[in-house]
């Protein structure tokens, strides 16, 4: 890749890149509570981008994405707790576990289309919880508790780098030749096959990437909360929250997942601090999701592109 092609990546990628660099550069001076908030935001953004790969780009709605996050978390907890690995290595382990799981699950479930894929992934996520409850090495239903000596800045930089790589990967696979393949599969999988696209392989590739990043994010999440616990790790709410983020931000876009994460995560945190509203954040998110799904296809980014022509060339 020469300098010129690096410069020509377009304003959206530049914007996200500059945002992340500024965030990274100022992190040491960000006060503790705010750093925690931003770290949480980045973890969720990584998860949203991960779901965006398979659901936004390829068009396969997954209700069970939490499974990669949860096993990524368990991988870190096990690696750090039982094997004494460095947490960053634990995150890499989480990513590897997410990748391997996605390959295995994808090989079977990606044969199903539409609702059948959604249901199959949901069911696997539910079943996975029951299986984990029974694995002795993974805490036998009680989970794994880690020593909470967490260095907030290391957690922050790990997730920042993970997210940056993920956004770069999303950009790369949507702009290369494979991007045409992915868009074709989303458009009409049968037609894609009859034009020479190996849809099964491309879907599996994207799903594997998606599992990898969700696994890494799950690892960072477990590191951040010092442990992995079955009922909270496998909570379907996580899957649903990721989905809400990309629906609101704009499915299949490069900027949408980030916008969606900000739009869902920050208000949720604010709601949590107000006793009267605490617990109602998901009611509001749910209402927004309903309205967007029914009346505003394309989410925030899609709508901006549609109604403001100047944004069309800039936002993707």
């Amino acid at each position, binding site marked *: 890749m020469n300098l010129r092609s690096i410069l020509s990546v377009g304003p959206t990628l530049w914007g996200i890149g500059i945002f992340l660099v500024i965030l990274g550069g100022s992190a040491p001076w960000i006060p503790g509570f705010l750093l925690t908030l931003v770290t949480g935001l980045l973890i969720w953004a990584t998860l949203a981008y991960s779901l965006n790969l398979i659901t936004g780009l390829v068009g396969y709605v997954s209700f069970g994405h939490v499974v990669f996050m949860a096993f990524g978390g368990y991988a870190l907890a096990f690696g750090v707790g039982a094997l004494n690995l460095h947490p960053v290595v634990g995150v890499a382990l989480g990513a590897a576990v997410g990748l391997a799981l996605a390959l295995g699950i994808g090989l079977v479930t990606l044969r199903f289309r539409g609702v059948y894929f959604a249901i199959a992934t949901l069911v696997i996520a539910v079943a996975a919880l029951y299986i984990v409850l029974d694995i002795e090495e993974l805490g036998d239903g009680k989970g794994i508790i880690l020593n909470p000596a967490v260095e907030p800045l290391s957690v922050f930089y790990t997730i920042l780098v993970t997210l940056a790589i993920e956004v770069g990967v999303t950009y790369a696979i949507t702009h*290369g030749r494979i991007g045409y393949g992915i*868009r074709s599969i989303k458009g009409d999988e049968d037609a*894609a096959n*009859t*034009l020479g696209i190996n849809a099964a392989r491309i879907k599996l590739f994207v799903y594997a990437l998606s599992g990898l990043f969700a696994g890494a994010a799950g690892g960072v999440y477990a590191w951040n909360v010092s442990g992995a616990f079955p009922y909270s790790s496998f909570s379907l709410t996580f899957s649903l929250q990721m989905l809400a983020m990309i629906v609101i931000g704009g499915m299949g876009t490069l900027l949408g997942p980030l916008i969606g994460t900000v739009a869902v995560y920050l208000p949720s945190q604010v709601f949590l601090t107000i006793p009267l509203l605490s617990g109602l954040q998901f009611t509001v998110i749910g209402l927004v999701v309903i309205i967007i799904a029914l009346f505003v296809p394309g989410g925030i980014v899609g709508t901006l592109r549609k109604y403001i022509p100047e944004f069309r060339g800039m936002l993707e």
Partner: protein
Amino acid sequence: MTRVLEVSQVHKYFGGVRAVQGVSLAVQEGNVIGLIGPNGSGKSTLLNLIAGVMKPTKGRISLDGQRIDGWPAHRIVEQGIAKTHQIPKPFLAMTCRENVAVAAMFGSNKQKDQSEALETAGRVLTLVGLEGKADSISSNLTVQERKRLEFARVLGTGARILLLDEIFAGLSPEELRDAIGMFTQVQKEVGFGALVVEHVMRAVLTVSGHVVVIEEGTKIADGSPREVVENPAVIEAYLGAEAVHAPT
């Protein structure tokens, strides 16, 4: 080398329904073969079997002597055989140019370079007369234009044997005349071989050098267009027994 697609004794059963029963035919690069028959006679199924959309129950399909039956659709295209869809299936979110570029990138020629593929797409769209629509989103096309785009995409794959499923259906007489003219010219220029499934008799008899007729999954006639229309079995299959003595 001239490429040859050979279909021999191919059968396809859906549970108890025998959709195709022992059909054999051959298509050579450069030749256009018409495949006609009444509704539900198994024409589209046969194309799907060749294109790898479905697997034959038994029988043999080969390209230049190599067996390809049972291969997945995308590998068949890589080998140089591409099929249109009876109901056009454009990628609705893409422009026409992108639709065809996908075919160029992933089809038989596998043009890895995006800008080259987009150029190829532009040339192909000009061939089929869609150059004016190259940068329109394909969801804005009319039915007739979608049919042309479908044809452009198989051309874009660079395949040497095309399987064309009713690309002339639903056109007005003038549109049909234009479409036939366009097809004949493109065929001369590109020199592909084609198996053309068609309801519109006039179209199929004009464009093909050889016609195969199937009824209820079996081949009932085979010959030049002239021979076929005069064949009593064919007339009976199409128009019923009473019409045998009053051919059009």
